[in-house]
C-alpha cells in the first residue's frame, strides 16, 4: 500500500535539498499540517474522537457525527490525507485541534490502519456541534441572484456529500429561476503540498469525472442538456499548501 502511495507521490527533490530555515519556501507555512497517515479513533464516554499522528505529535481532527455533519470522519483500514492549520486551542482527546481541517480518505486499503483507543478518563470529547436538521439541509434559499457556485471534493474523489449535492441543487434552482441561457460546468483537479515538502497530485481523470457527474445531475434536475456545457482542466491546479483543498472542485457558472 505504501508503495502504491509512493507512486502517486512525486518528490519535490529540489526543495528537499535546500535544508531547513525559519520560513522555508520548500514547505507549506509552518502552521500547516498536511500529511498522509493512519487515522486513530479514540472511544470516549460520548462521541468517538478522530485523531492522526504526524512527526510524533497527535492532532485532533473531529468527532463522529452524522451524514448531515460538516465533518466526515476518516476510516480505519485506510490512510487519510489531513490538510489543516494548527491552533492554540486546548487539546481535545489528547490531540492538538486543527482548524480549519479537511480530511480525505485514501481509497486503497491499508489494513495496518487499525488503531482504536479505549475510552480514558480525562479524554472526554467536547459537545458535538448542533446537528443541522434534514429540513434545513433541504430548504432552498430565496436568493436567485447568485451566478457562481463551487462544489468542493475530497482528494481523488468524485463523491458528492449531502452538503455538496445541496450546492448543485441550489445551482439548478437558480438557473431555472434566472432563467439561464447557459450553464458552464468546469472540473478541476489539484495537488496538495504536504508538510514534508512532497507533492501529492490527484488522478489524471478525476477532473473529468467530477465535471461529468455534476453536469449529469444538473440535467437530471431539469436543466436542458443543450444549455449545460461540461469542461474540465487536465492540468492540476498549482499548490500553495494552504488553499489546496479548495482547488479540488467543480465550478458552475450561470449565464443568464
Amino acid at each position, binding site marked *: 500500500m505504501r508503495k502504491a502511495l509512493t507512486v502517486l507521490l512525486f518528490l519535490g527533490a529540489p526543495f528537499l535539498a535546500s535544508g531547513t530555515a525559519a520560513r522555508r519556501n520548500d514547505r507549506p507555512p509552518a502552521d500547516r499540517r498536511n500529511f498522509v497517515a493512519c487515522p486513530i*479513533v479514540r*472511544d470516549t464516554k460520548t*462521541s*468517538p474522537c*478522530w485523531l492522526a499522528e504526524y512527526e510524533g505529535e497527535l492532532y485532533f481532527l473531529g468527532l*463522529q*457525527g*452524522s*451524514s448531515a455533519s460538516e465533518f*466526515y*470522519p*476518516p*476510516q*480505519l*483500514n*485506510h490512510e487519510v490525507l489531513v490538510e489543516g492549520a494548527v491552533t492554540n486551542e486546548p487539546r481535545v482527546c489528547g490531540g492538538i485541534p486543527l482548524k480549519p481541517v479537511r480530511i480525505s480518505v485514501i*481509497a*486503497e*486499503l491499508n489494513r495496518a490502519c487499525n488503531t*482504536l483507543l479505549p475510552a480514558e478518563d480525562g479524554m472526554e470529547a467536547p459537545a458535538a456541534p448542533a446537528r443541522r436538521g*434534514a429540513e434545513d439541509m*433541504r430548504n432552498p434559499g430565496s436568493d436567485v441572484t447568485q451566478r457562481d457556485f463551487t462544489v468542493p471534493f475530497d482528494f481523488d474523489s*468524485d*463523491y*458528492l*456529500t*449531502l452538503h*455538496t*449535492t445541496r450546492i448543485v*441543487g441550489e445551482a439548478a434552482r437558480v438557473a431555472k429561476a434566472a432563467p439561464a441561457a447557459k450553464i458552464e460546468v468546469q472540473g478541476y483537479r489539484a495537488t496538495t503540498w504536504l508538510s514534508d515538502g512532497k507533492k501529492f497530485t490527484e488522478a489524471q*481523470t478525476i477532473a473529468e469525472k467530477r465535471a461529468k*457527474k455534476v453536469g*449529469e*445531475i444538473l440535467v*437530471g*434536475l431539469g436543466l436542458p442538456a443543450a444549455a449545460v456545457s461540461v469542461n474540465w482542466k487536465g492540468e492540476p491546479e498549482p499548490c500553495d499548501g494552504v488553499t489546496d483543498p479548495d482547488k479540488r472542485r467543480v465550478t458552475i457558472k450561470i449565464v443568464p
Partner: protein
Amino acid sequence: MLVGFIVAACVVWSRDDAAGYQVEHLRWIEAGAVGALPAEMHFGNADGKLGVLNAAGPIEMKGHPFFEPLGLNSRACVTCHQPANAMSVSVETLRERWRVTNGDDPIFAPVDGSNNPKLPQAPESSHSLLLNRGLFRVGLPWPPRDAHGKVIQPEFTIEVARDPTGVNLDDTFGLKGVNPTVSVFRRPRPVANMKYVMSPDGVFNVKTGTLMAVDPETGKPASMNLMSDARHLTLKQQANGAYRDHQEGRQGALPRDELDKIVAFENQVYMAQSHDRWGGSLVEAGGPPGLGSRAMADGNVHALANKDRDPVFRLFDAWKNPATMAKELTEAQREFRASVARGNDVFMFRQFWIRDAAHINSIGLGNPIKRTCSTCHNAQMTGQDLAPGWVDVGTTNYPTWTEPPVFSDKAELPVFKLTCDKSATPHPYLGRVIYTNDPGRALITGKCVDIGSIVMGQFRGLAARAPYFSNGSAKNLRELVDFHDRRFDMKLTEREKVDLINFLSVL
C-alpha cells in the same frame, strides 16, 4: 375431559371464525385458487400467529392476476408470496409442499426452483437450495445493462471459483453461454407493507452522491428498496420481471390492466406478527403501538426513527414492567413481554462499533462508528434504511460469510472471484480481489464498491418466513442475531440475545 376440551376448542375456533380467522385452507394458496381472501387473516407459526390485513377488504382470488398462473409453468405471484408466510415463503412450507406433492408443485419448477435446470428434477437433492435455504435461482445478464438495454462496462472481471450446482459453468445457463448469465440464489422478499418499502428518500441518493433513480412512469424518485439488488424500481417492473423469469411468461410484458391489479393488491396488503406463542394478542389497548398489521396500515411513512422519543418499532414502555401488564396474562407471557421490551432497548440503544460495512461506514459516517442497530435499520415500522438500503454487511462475502471456505467441497452456493480493475475505486473494505457467493448490487451497476451489497429487507413477519438474509444463511433468528454479534463484535450477553430474538419474533 376430552369432550370438555373439544367444546372449549370449538368455542375458541368459532370466535376466531367470527373474526375472520378461519384460514387454515389458505395456509397454502395454489395458483388459480378460487374464493375470497378475507380482509383479515391470522396464521399460526412457531412464535404465535401472523396477521395479514387486506386494507381494501376481501379479495376475490379467481381471475385476479396475483393469484392466476400467467406464464407457462403454472405458477402465480402467490406461489412464492404466500400470506401465511408473510407474503414470502418459508423453508418449512417448501418442505411441506415437497412432501405433499412429491416434488410436483410448480414452485419446484426447473427454471429457478431447482439448483440447475439441467439436473434430473425428481431427486430432492436437485432442489436442495430451495428446500434447505429457501433460495430461488436468479439469473442476471453479464455484463449488466442499463435501463435502456445498453451494456455497462463493469469495473471488475468475474470468474466462477466454485460451482456446486453446475449452473454457472453450464454451456446454456452459465457465464460462457450464448447469453452470458450469472446465477445467484436468493430468498423471495415479502410483498406487503409496500407503502413503507416504496417510499422514496428524496432527490439525491446518499449512497452514490448522485440523483436518485426515477420511476419511468411518473418521473419521480424511486425508493430503490424493493429488490435485494435494487434492479427493479417499481412494483410494475418487478411484476413484469417475475412474470418473465419466475413464471416463464412469453408475452414480454403483462397487460396494463393486470399490472394495475397486481400493484393495487400489493399496495393494500399489510402484515405483522399478531399473537404470542401462548395465543395472546400482541395488540393490546395501551400496549406497544407498533405491533400488528393494522398498525402497519396506519403508520407514518418515511419517518426516520433512530431516536428515543418515537423509535423504529414505536415505544414498548407498556411492557417494561410485568406488574403493570393485563391481569389475564400468565407469568410466562409477562416475562416474555418484558423481554421484548428489553430487546427493543437493545435494538435501539445498545451501542457497538459498526465497522467495515460498505455503504454505511463508507458514505461519510466514518469507519468505525459507535452506534446501534437502529442506525442502519432506521425506517419506522419496517427497520429498513430510509435511504436506498444496499449495504455490504458481509453475509455474502468471504471472510465474513457463514459459508464453508472458498474452495471447500461442502460449498452449497456458487463462489465467484471478482477482480477489480486498477482504475476503479476498490471495494472500501475488501480491496480488489473478492470472493463472494452473491455480488449483489454490483451485478447491476458493475461497480467494485457495490460488491456484496444487498438491500436490507423489512423486519415484519419474521416469525413466519425463516430463513433470513438474502442467501438464507441464517436458519432462524438466533443465527441472525449471532451473525451480527460476531460480525460487529457486539459482545451481546445471552440475555441480550434472547431479548433481541423475542423482540424480533413479535414484529
